[in-house]
């Protein structure tokens, strides 16, 4: 039996139900969607005894306000969005017991960009194509295929144990990702790095970039670095009117296009599955989570790693999202 646990009093800037995403439908143009910071969501679920892959509530930049409808255990993780239960601060990276009638409010993010709120038992929304994630542009999944609005009521499934047993857990401090603004984002080169001149590659890795105002779940644009010079090959290949054009191919999650050689754009969880621009490289999986906590104006540097190193880095990250890294 599921219960109505939260009512949205104020939806915040962009609040939606997200799990780890939808796999297997990119060949139909359905992006994975899912949490922009999947590592924070994993820890958030662990804190309230939920299985890995359960859905939580993702809030963006300006948090939401909820009324608690039933005594429950909740957890809060991700970006530093100062939060309160009534007038008492709600600790981040912890699980907490709340009571019917309480008001949960999440404010403007001080550091980071996305906060996650999980409910013990998980959120009861239908599984659409194997996932509870909301694909907002496609009007699909999550809560009625859209972002949360005032008056929406979210249901939770039955918690895995008693509220007292689920509340009061904390993530060990050394596991908590840094809130630092400056981010080094690691990149695996390809598939069209050979279309970029060495000068362009040096510029890409040497420049100090900033997240532009065009940064959302579809993709993040970066500005402030120099122009990317293309290699001769890009001018002789017939992909379109500009050297940054290629004949369309698939776009990996995190893939970085440089339309016109001006602003690199990393295509993210709600991004397109195919397109016709040179991709210099791809953000590695663990760093997509870190990028998900970057907001407009944040400084970014790119660093190259190999695909093998990236696989090890993901292994390390996944190993951290483990019950043994919680304390009471």
């Amino acid at each position, binding site marked *: 039996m599921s219960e109505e646990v939260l009512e949205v009093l104020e939806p915040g800037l962009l609040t939606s139900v997200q799990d780890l995403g939808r*796999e*297997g*439908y*990119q*060949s*139909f*143009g*359905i992006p994975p969607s899912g949490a922009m910071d999947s590592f924070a969501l994993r820890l958030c679920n662990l804190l309230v005894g939920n299985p890995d892959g359960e859905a939580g509530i993702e809030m963006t930049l300006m948090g939401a306000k909820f009324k608690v409808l039933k005594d429950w255990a909740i957890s809060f993780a991700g970006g530093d969005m100062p939060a309160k239960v009534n007038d008492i601060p709600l600790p981040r990276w912890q699980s907490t017991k709340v009571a019917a009638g309480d008001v949960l409010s999440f404010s403007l993010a001080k550091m980071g960009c996305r906060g996650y709120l999980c409910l013990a038992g998980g959120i009861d929304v239908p599984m659409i*194509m194997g996932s509870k994630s909301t*694909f907002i*542009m*496609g*009007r*699909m999944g999550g809560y009625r*295929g859209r972002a949360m609005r005032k008056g929406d009521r979210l249901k939770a499934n039955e918690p895995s144990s008693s509220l007292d047993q689920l509340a009061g857990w904390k993530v060990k401090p050394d596991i908590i990702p840094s809130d630092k603004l400056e981010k080094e984002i690691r990149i*695996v*080169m*390809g*598939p*069209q790095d050979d279309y970029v001149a060495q000068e362009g590659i040096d510029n890409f890795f040497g420049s100090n970039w900033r997240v532009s105002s065009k940064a959302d779940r579809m993709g993040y644009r970066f500005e402030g670095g120099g122009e990317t010079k293309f290699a001769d090959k890009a001018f002789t*290949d017939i992909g379109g009117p500009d050297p940054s054009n290629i*004949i*369309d*191919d*698939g*776009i*990996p*999650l*995190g*893939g970085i296009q440089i339309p016109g050689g001006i602003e690199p754009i990393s295509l993210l969880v709600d991004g*397109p*599955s*195919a*397109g016709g621009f040179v*991709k210099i*490289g*791809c*953000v*590695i*999986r663990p760093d997509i989570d870190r990028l998900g906590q970057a907001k407009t104006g944040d400084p970014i540097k790119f660093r190259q790693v190999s*695909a*093998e190193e*990236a*696989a090890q880095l*993901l*292994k390390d990250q*996944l190993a951290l999202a483990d019950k043994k890294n919680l304390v009471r």
Partner: protein
Amino acid sequence: MFYDEPRFLIAGDRYISVEVANAMNIRTSFRVLALDRAVKEAGIPGLVETVLTYRAEMIYFDNQKISIKDLIAEVKKISDSMDKVESVPSRLIELPCRYGGKYGPDLEYVAEVNKLKNTDEAAEWHYSAPHWVGIVGFTPGHPFLMSLNPPNKMLNAPKYKIPRTYTPVGTLGHGGNITSMYTLPSPGGYQKIAYCPVPIYDSFQRLDQFTDSPILLQVGDRIRFRPINDDEMDDLRQQVLECSYQYKIEEETFSLKEYLESIKV
């Protein structure tokens, strides 16, 4: 057109792109589709999903289950030992559509740049042969189609210089020699030539056809566009509203060889 050997490109920590050609046409698409079927049949551990375009198969894999090096070796082995594929199963799907007028305001321009008499002739060029689905993507269920007419009867049109900010769902756009169908209200640069009143993407899965998936089309399908008039358009819209519209779909086999022979002048 084709590379002597497919190119195996690293496309990130969890993706490779197997590129068969630096061109896009029915033959390259057919080869990508054949490769994709062979790769999927091989059941490589760690393969999550693939994204097909006219010129490449992108493979998304779990890098905790297989290394990129081993994956490339496996796919190369499959590609090297693949038998020549002559034909593939291919559904022929009929979609009604209204050409020209307010539903396809750019058809006149398309007729003009193709030096055709009028919009009727341009429409006839478009609906007289089925279209091949070579990509489904960009937005959900959005196909990129190529006419199966002989090359001397394919429409060709430049894209908008400045893309429009809004395209109604159901619009058929034409750019270069590709027709696309808009499945979400979105910006667009293809010439608006027609409008299809029945959905190919139904996110809330209301019509029977979408019970299992909100997406109608897949790579390797063919679409036959059937021209309709305004009266039939109104009738079809009503059927969609009432969720009673029945799609006409035939399960067929498509032989590339026979097709290429048939379009020889």
